[in-house]
């Protein structure tokens, strides 16, 4: 359609003079918006009291039922990223971001109707399914564009965007609380109007990303902002991809599945901490840590998660991706095994520092993986390959909490003290990270027989 031709890839090619530093804020606009998903829990309690008011009525939705909305959204994130990855590569970032904005905001609007009419299916379909597709499209849409704009610093560039996903929840949680308070008199707990307002706000914010993003011309090469350091040059020569691999071919390589396991174990271990952070610190330090202080601890972990995304991915441009992941897995395993002992020794400071480092590496794992994929499979379909790899996240999102809760429950049922049950869980997480370490060691360069010529698969981009 002529009306939407501005979304086409050929209309997004950067003109001479364009600054590549405009692309990270465009990507951030998308990731800061879709990162709202991690703050969905702020709606849990109000959604469970839509009929009852101050308390849940028998006809109100149960908290366990509402929990499905977030789970479905994360599953659809993984599925849509895996399914639409090649489409995203073909049509370019602008159209993909636009589709993401339509789905994500549309999901809010459908969910608002579901809340207003008290139909759970609409809430699930709107925020969970439609919104989840928006999450998946939005998550992968800027990745390959950023890697193409920053071939000299792919870790930092993608880390910046993925940091936005962590930061999005920090904006969304207080924003939703403010909006619900503002609309409290309009509808029960102000949830439905808040959904509409957030849908509209996020759509506008994402449009900024849509209109700002550009792809580089074919022959474009970066003019270095500064001379690369010796460490950066060494890392570049070591990590430079030998060629390009298609998404279909990538999943046939052992490298893809090794990276899949690495992401899966890193996320599973991180979720193990995040999900239990508040009760864990209170039970480890009874009488010392109050509920408010525990909430502060959770906030601190979120900050570490976000900062780690930028720090570790940027560092990977200097020390290399393999060394970065080796640090995550070795240092992570050591910390998981040792930090509970600091709890038993009564040192709150060491306990907090240990988990802050752990959470920074959890975020770092997410943010460094696109650059690792580029090193292995080249840039041509890196977004699509990243999309397929995100199924590891969906798997860990379901597996992680189940595993952690099951181990903990099993321990407590067999007479282990509550504080000690965490220790065993942490040892198992340390073991999982060692599995990741072995996988990382086994990652070698992709065999040349998997590679294709760029011109065979490159999307048609007029120069």
């Amino acid at each position: 359609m002529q009306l939407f031709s501005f979304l086409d890839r050929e209309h997004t090619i950067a003109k001479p003079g364009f600054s590549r530093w405009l692309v990270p804020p465009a990507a951030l606009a998308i990731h800061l918006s879709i990162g709202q998903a991690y703050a969905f829990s702020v709606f849990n309690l109000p959604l469970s009291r839509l009929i009852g008011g101050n308390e849940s009525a028998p006809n109100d939705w149960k908290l366990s039922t509402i929990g499905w909305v977030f789970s479905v959204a994360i599953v659809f994130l993984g599925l849509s990223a895996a399914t639409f990855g090649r489409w995203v590569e073909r049509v370019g970032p602008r159209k993909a971001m636009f589709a993401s904005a339509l789905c994500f905001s549309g999901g809010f609007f459908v969910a608002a109707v579901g809340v207003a009419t008290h139909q759970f299916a609409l809430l699930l379909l709107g925020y969970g399914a439609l919104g989840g597709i928006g999450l998946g499209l939005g998550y992968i849409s800027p990745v390959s564009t950023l890697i193409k704009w920053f071939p000299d610093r792919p870790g930092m560039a993608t880390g910046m965007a993925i940091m936005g996903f962590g930061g999005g929840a920090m904006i969304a949680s207080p924003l939703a609380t403010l909006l619900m308070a503002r609309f409290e008199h309009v509808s029960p707990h102000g949830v439905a109007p808040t959904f509409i307002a957030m849908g509209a706000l996020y759509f506008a914010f994402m449009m900024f990303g849509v209109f700002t993003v550009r792809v580089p011309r074919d022959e474009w090469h970066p003019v270095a902002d500064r001379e690369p350091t010796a460490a950066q040059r060494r890392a570049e020569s070591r990590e430079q991809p030998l060629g390009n691999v298609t998404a279909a071919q990538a999943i046939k390589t052992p490298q893809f599945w090794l990276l899949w396991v690495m992401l899966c174990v890193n996320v599973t271990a991180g979720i193990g901490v995040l999900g239990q952070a508040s009760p864990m610190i209170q039970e480890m330090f009874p009488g010392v840590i109050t509920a408010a202080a525990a909430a502060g601890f959770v906030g601190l972990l979120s900050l570490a998660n976000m900062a780690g995304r930028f720090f570790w991915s940027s560092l990977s441009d200097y020390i290399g991706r393999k060394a970065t992941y080796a640090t995550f897995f070795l240092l992570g395993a050591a910390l998981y095994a040792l930090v509970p002992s600091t709890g038993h020794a009564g040192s709150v400071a060491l306990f907090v520092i240990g988990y802050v480092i752990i959470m920074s590496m959890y975020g770092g794992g997410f943010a460094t993986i696109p650059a690792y994929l580029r090193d292995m499979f080249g840039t041509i379909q890196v977004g699509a390959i990243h999309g397929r790899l995100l199924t590891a996240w969906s798997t860990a999102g379901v597996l992680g909490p189940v595993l952690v809760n099951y181990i903990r429950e099993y321990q407590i049922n067999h007479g282990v003290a509550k504080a000690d049950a965490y220790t065993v869980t942490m040892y198992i997480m340390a073991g999982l990270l060692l599995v990741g370490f072995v996988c990382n060691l086994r990652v070698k360069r992709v065999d040349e027989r998997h590679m294709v010529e760029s011109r065979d698969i490159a999307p048609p981009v007029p120069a």
Partner: protein
Amino acid sequence: MTLRYRVQLIFAWTLVGVPLAWGVWQVFKKSLDLFR
């Protein structure tokens, strides 16, 4: 870089930086409870 892109650059980073800084500040304020 042309003036147009310079202005656009400042605008873009402000637009994403301000809400992000606000969100980080909200969480940071809450996390201070840990040290009280």
